[in-house]
């Protein structure tokens, strides 16, 4: 590229031009490459320092913890002796996220199929647009809606669940009180991640090659059989990554949980009882009253949340990589 052929400026002396071009070209290239490479490296440094700083502050707190960090059912870093543990938070985070996924993923796949394959065409395009917009609604708005609208609304259905499904233990409501339970949190998280999971799944379903669908149609497949034979196998890895995206959001969601849940440091299999907690919710709830040591303790719990989301992300990536050979996406 040093040999700049000056097609556009033939009259100028070639030697001088060549030198000028070379100089500014080389210097410019160096600066530009340095800048862009530097940005990439900065990102790596940032990720590394997140891990290092969180670990360091967390270790300060955990080393002075008189309880067991993983099994203690209490959060009292300001006490004497300081005692705090994440057992309840881990339980609550996982339970609420599992409930959210169990509701959101099937429904999202249904809506995505509705938009991509069932809805009248005139309805499909605006619907897709609205779903994309809903995915951008901030979580605090879901939070106050959940607390002020959903919680009072769910009281009836909760009684009903208790009445008919109380025998399952999970839906037995042993404590009176409003529906500020892990179950309600799960439902709210489901509603919250529904748009994003739908939006990604829909895009994957629309990418199914037309000829794959026609192959099924020409064999005399009904619409459902077309979906089962060609759309779902093709879209499976996309749906998995969409779900993981949703799961990541559900695990780390702060505001929607903090507004709805009435927290307590107990673990209960009765999902309808108020109480429990999640990592993010606990940080939001305990932050204001925490001194420096208390903040370090919260950072320690945040580190666990961080690792949890990393594991989910890694698992998603593994699944997608393994499925890729069979997905036909590259066929």
């Amino acid at each position, binding site marked *: *590229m040093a040999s700049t052929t000056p097609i*556009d400026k033939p009259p100028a002396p070639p030697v001088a031009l060549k030198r000028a*071009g070379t100089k*500014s070209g080389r210097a*410019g*290239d160096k*600066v*530009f*490459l340095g800048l*862009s*490479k530097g*940005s*990439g*490296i*900065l*990102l*790596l440094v940032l990720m590394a320092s*997140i891990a290092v*700083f*969180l670990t*360091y*502050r967390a270790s300060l707190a955990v080393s002075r913890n008189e309880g067991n960090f993983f099994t203690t059912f209490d959060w009292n870093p300001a006490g004497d002796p300081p005692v705090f543990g994440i057992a309840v938070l881990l339980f609550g985070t996982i339970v609420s996220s599992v409930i959210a996924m169990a509701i959101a993923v099937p*429904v999202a796949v*249904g*809506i995505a*199929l*509705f938009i991509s394959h069932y809805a009248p065409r005139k309805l499909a395009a605006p619907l897709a647009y609205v779903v994309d917009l*809903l995915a*951008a*609604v*901030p*979580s*605090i*708005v879901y*939070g*106050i*809606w959940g607390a*002020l609208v959903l919680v009072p609304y769910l*009281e*009836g*259905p909760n009684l009903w669940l208790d009445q008919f499904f109380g025998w399952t233990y999970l839906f037995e409501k042993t404590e009176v009180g409003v529906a500020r339970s892990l179950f309600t949190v799960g439902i709210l998280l489901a*509603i919250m991640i529904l748009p994003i999971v739908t939006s990604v799944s829909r895009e994957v379903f629309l990418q199914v090659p037309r000829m794959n669908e026609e192959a099924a149609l020409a064999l005399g497949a*009904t619409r*459902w*059989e077309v979906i089962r034979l060609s759309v779902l196998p093709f879209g499976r890895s996309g749906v998995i990554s969409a779900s993981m*995206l949703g799961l990541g959001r559900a695990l*780390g969601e*702060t*505001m929607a949980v*903090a507004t709805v849940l009435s927290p307590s440091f107990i673990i209960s299999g009765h999902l309808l009882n108020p109480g429990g907690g999640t990592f993010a919710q606990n*940080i*939001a709830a305990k*932050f204001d009253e925490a001194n420096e040591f208390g*903040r370090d303790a919260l950072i320690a719990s*945040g580190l666990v*949340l*961080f690792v949890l*989301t*990393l594991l989910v*992300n890694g698992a998603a990536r593994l699944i997608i990589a393994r499925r890729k050979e069979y997905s036909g996406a590259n066929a």
Partner: protein
Amino acid sequence: MSQAANTGIQERPVPTAPKRSTSLSTRALPRWAPFAFAAVAIALGVGTGMAAGWQSRTQWGLVSALLFVVISYITTSVVENRRQAKDRLATSIVWVCFLLAVVPLASLLWTTISRGAERLDGYFLTHSMAGVLGSEPTGGVYHALIGTLEQVGIATLIAAPIGMLTAVYLVEYGKGALAKAVTFFVDVMTGIPSIVAGLFILSIMLMTKTQPSGLMGALALTILMMPVVVRSTEEMLKLVPNELREASLALGVPKWRTILKVVLPTAIGGITTGVMLAIARIAGETAPIMLLVFGSQLINTNPFQGAQSSLPFYIWEQYKVGTDQSYDRAWAAALVLIAFVMILNLVARGIARWKAPKTGR
């Protein structure tokens, strides 16, 4: 029936494939059947609900939805056949999914708009909460608007250039281990919960004894914004056809000028869209602000010193106050926030459509 047409291919008797009637016509339910099923299901659902004395309309709806799915499956398998019944089952489940999801999402939008509009006016947008008690019906969101604009602005000023440059590195230069590592960790970064990003900045603040300020919040938002910008810019740059780059390089234009003058301008529409969508995303983040900016009732126009507020944090504060008046303020602020985010989204998507590269999709 295939035995008649024995060719040399068939050496031993093979079961005939189809067990089908010779006729193409099948018994079919009329077109209005789904509507009839729906009407019957709703009637039955409401009937059971009233008979059992259930308070909640949700239960009526759920029972109706369930009945609809069951009725259409059974009727179809009796009148038509099992395959058609399965097909109709899938169709009705998909419709039910859609309708079930519409209810809460519509309720969310409707509540925010109707409750928010009660309190939203010029006064609300131009006054702060200075000296306003929780139970007073006055006060406004001005200080929070300023906070959001400044924090998001600072975050964008930092994250957009770094994110874009990183994407340029990955697409135009990136090869080898470094590029792979960057790609991987950008993915990882996308999944960081906002509260963890907040805790990271908090840990730095604890070590350097820094006081809360808008800047700290902006830094956490930067962490959340960067990977989004990298991803979307990367995608847009990949859409730029290689012929354009080669044409420019073949004219003797240095690579950096090719990128600046040819590649980036071609993709600029999509990149702008990506950045705006990223802004819309971070504008609604509450958790880092809660940890790092601390919140304030007063107008503080200096993001580098002193506590500030922000729109999402303001909603959280007003919710926690717990009076009717503060709920009103929370809804009004939520409407402002949603409007802000939606306008950004609409404009961004508009730009994407308008500036879409002719070569792309």
